[in-house]
């Protein structure tokens, strides 16, 4: 019964990701993509990695979606600017061809190689063990991640903020 | 300290909350239809016509259709038509009575001028405020029957003023009766000595005309 559920989640995520890439309306495609992120979080839950699922939910659906939606709103001139103009068919075709080629290579790798049998019981990653390892072996990388995040937020604020030089921009 | 203002505010609302349960001074709202506040005596709303006896309102109306109030009313919302015949009023004197007496309550502004100018205390200010009607025009035009209310009702809403008016009317009636008696006596005396000189009874009959109350 669980593999059927897993399959369903996979199909829903793939479906929403694909339609997200095809839609004209930018807001709809972003929201569908957030739906696929939720699908990925549910997939993590079904694999037993609770902490990562909730971290994904909190980070992606809570924060990154807001950043993306605000970016979409900030980069449009008028209400109707949300619908993006259609791309040239040739460009779309070449992209799909490239994606198909990569997919073929990946699928070949995934299906043909003989993978070792899965370990007997499903491994559990209790939060306490994760905490111990994070503070133990990976303490240095935790600090580095903290550094990256602060630098990223400060940097994005500086990049996106108005230029203090007061150079006259053309009116939007 | 940052939080002190906030705590004082909370204390005030708590005191109000607790006070509203036991302190009657705090909970001042009266739950209207069930419990009503006592209206002050001087409260006035729309005028009404005073009739002496409750059972026959049209017969014993004090109003004598002198139309002073109609002329005096600032928004001109009173309309009176005199009656053709006469009927005895409270003091027994034959007076005209209003065949039609209309007040347009949608125009009336409760200024009480009609009450002040009425020489016969026939119109007084009522204390009724629940006068909502379904219909905008005809229902607000009050006719004689709707306006007439017995003197007993007047006593119930304004005891002191009603008593003072009744006292004055009674005194007036007494004076009128004495005059009538004196006039009857003088007439009887005149018939008893028909040979008496002509001029004596004439001035007697003229003088007792009832003066208007101030």
């Amino acid at each position, binding site marked *: 019964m669980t593999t059927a559920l897993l399959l369903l989640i996979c199909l829903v995520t793939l479906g929403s990701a694909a339609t997200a890439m095809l839609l004209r309306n930018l807001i709809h495609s972003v929201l569908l993509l957030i739906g696929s992120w939720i699908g990925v979080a549910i997939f993590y839950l079904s694999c037993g990695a*609770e*902490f990562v699922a909730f971290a994904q939910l909190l980070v992606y659906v809570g924060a990154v979606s807001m950043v993306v939606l605000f970016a979409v*709103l900030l980069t449009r001139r008028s209400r109707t600017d949300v619908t993006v103009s259609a791309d040239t068919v040739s460009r779309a075709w070449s992209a799909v061809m490239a994606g198909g080629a990569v997919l073929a290579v990946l699928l070949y790798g995934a299906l043909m190689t003989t993978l070792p049998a899965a370990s007997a019981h499903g491994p559990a990653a209790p939060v306490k063990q994760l905490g111990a390892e994070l503070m133990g072996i990976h303490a240095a990388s935790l600090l580095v991640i903290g550094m990256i995040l602060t630098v990223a937020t400060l940097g994005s604020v500086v990049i996106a903020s108005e230029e203090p030089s007061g150079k006259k921009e053309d009116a939007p | 300290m*940052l939080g002190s203002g906030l705590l004082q505010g909370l204390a005030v609302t708590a005191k109000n909350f607790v006070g509203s349960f036991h302190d009657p001074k705090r909970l001042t709202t009266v739950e209207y239809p069930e419990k009503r506040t006592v209206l002050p005596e001087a409260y006035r709303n729309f005028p009404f016509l005073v009739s002496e006896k409750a059972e026959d309102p049209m017969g014993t109306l004090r109003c004598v259709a002198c139309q002073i109030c109609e002329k005096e009313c600032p928004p001109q919302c009173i309309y009176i038509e005199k009656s053709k015949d006469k009927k005895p009023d409270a003091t027994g004197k034959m007076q005209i009575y209003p065949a039609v007496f209309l007040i347009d309550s949608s125009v009336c502004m409760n200024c009480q001028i009609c009450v002040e100018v009425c020489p016969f205390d026939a119109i007084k200010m009522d204390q009724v405020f629940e006068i909502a009607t379904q219909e905008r025009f005809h229902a607000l035009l009050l006719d004689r029957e709707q306006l007439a209310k017995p003197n007993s009702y007047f006593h119930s809403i304004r005891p002191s003023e009603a008593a003072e008016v009744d006292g004055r009317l009674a005194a007036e009636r007494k004076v009128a009766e004495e005059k009538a008696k004196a006039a009857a006596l003088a007439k009887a005396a005149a018939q008893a000595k028909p040979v008496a000189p002509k001029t004596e009874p004439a001035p007697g009959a003229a003088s007792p005309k009832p003066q208007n109350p101030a």
Partner: protein
Amino acid sequence: MMPSTPQDSLLERAPQLLRDLVTSHLPEPWRWFANSLIAMIVILAVFGLLFAALTLVERKVLGRVQNRPGPNRTGPFGLLQPIADGIKMLSKEDIVPRDADHILHFLAPVILLASTVMAFAVIPYGRHLVPVDLDAAVLYFFAVGATTELAVFMAGWSSHNKYSLLAAMRALAQLISYELPLLLSWVPVVMISGTLSTTGIVAAQSAWKWGWVPTWNVFTPWGFAGFAVFMVAALAESNRSPFDLPEAESELIAGHLTEYSGCKYVFFFMAEYFGMTALSGMAVTLFLGGWHAPLPSLEFIPSYAWFGAKLITLLVGFIWIRATFPRLRIDQLTRFAWKFLVPLALINLGTTAFWSLSFGWTGPLQLVRWAVAIVLVVVPFIVMGRRLSSGVAPRTYSYAT
């Protein structure tokens, strides 16, 4: 659900006995399914009724605070007012603007209500009444809470109304800037009790000091500071009283809810109350010792009664605060969050680190430990408090006596 130990009183085991009565004969996969279904139905019923009662209690308390009786027309003492409100709201026509984005317009309240109700799954209501016992329960609670911002944005964007989009932006600014202190304020609790699961946190607060003082987190200096920051952030997160800028009637009509009417508006209204109840339920679990009794002698009263009592006191506290404080402007609101709550919560992390490091101190050192902790909490509060209102001259108030 943990199995109920026999020594619990009958009343204590009653909910579990009732549930087992219904589902004990089902085969295994269906039994788990039936159990969780019953848990869902009970949660929705109990908190639905609490929502209805809360609207009435709110209007009654607000009335009484303003020296007026509050609703008393519908039914004795106004008890049928929630039903009347419900019928009125549900029978109103559901108007959707012509150019609105119909799918999003419909989805926004659904997602908001779904994510708010999902948050009830991890709160331990009683000794054996935990719907889902997750290992990372507190993280789940706030992860689900984060999706409400998405619903607010969808509501603002899809109503095709300039002002509701503007109001949605203001609401998002408030929600995001208060999510940080909300998340930071419960980290000390996890640091001390060592686990993210709500049952573990409640178990960590079960001991008695000197026989009768309960060791709830709120009675420790860092716990009290964390509780205060958590409650202020919870007020802002559920758009309540001093922070109810998003739906301030006097400014932007109903903010991002302007284009909603009828049943959808009831969803938003209900989601706000569910959010408030869920956040105060989590506050009770994290800081007020979940379902523990305040005194050992009162242990005979069932645990879910204690949880309910604490929850209702917090909710009445929400209403009391709403009756007292005026609304904050958007700049005051964000300045208060970033310049006061976030630094205070970070310093509170330091205090808790000191508290857990000085765990072994005994005897006179215990007093030193408490003194240092209290100083670490109070001094930054006063210093930053003064800096926060430095520009404003001290105002003189004449209170209504």
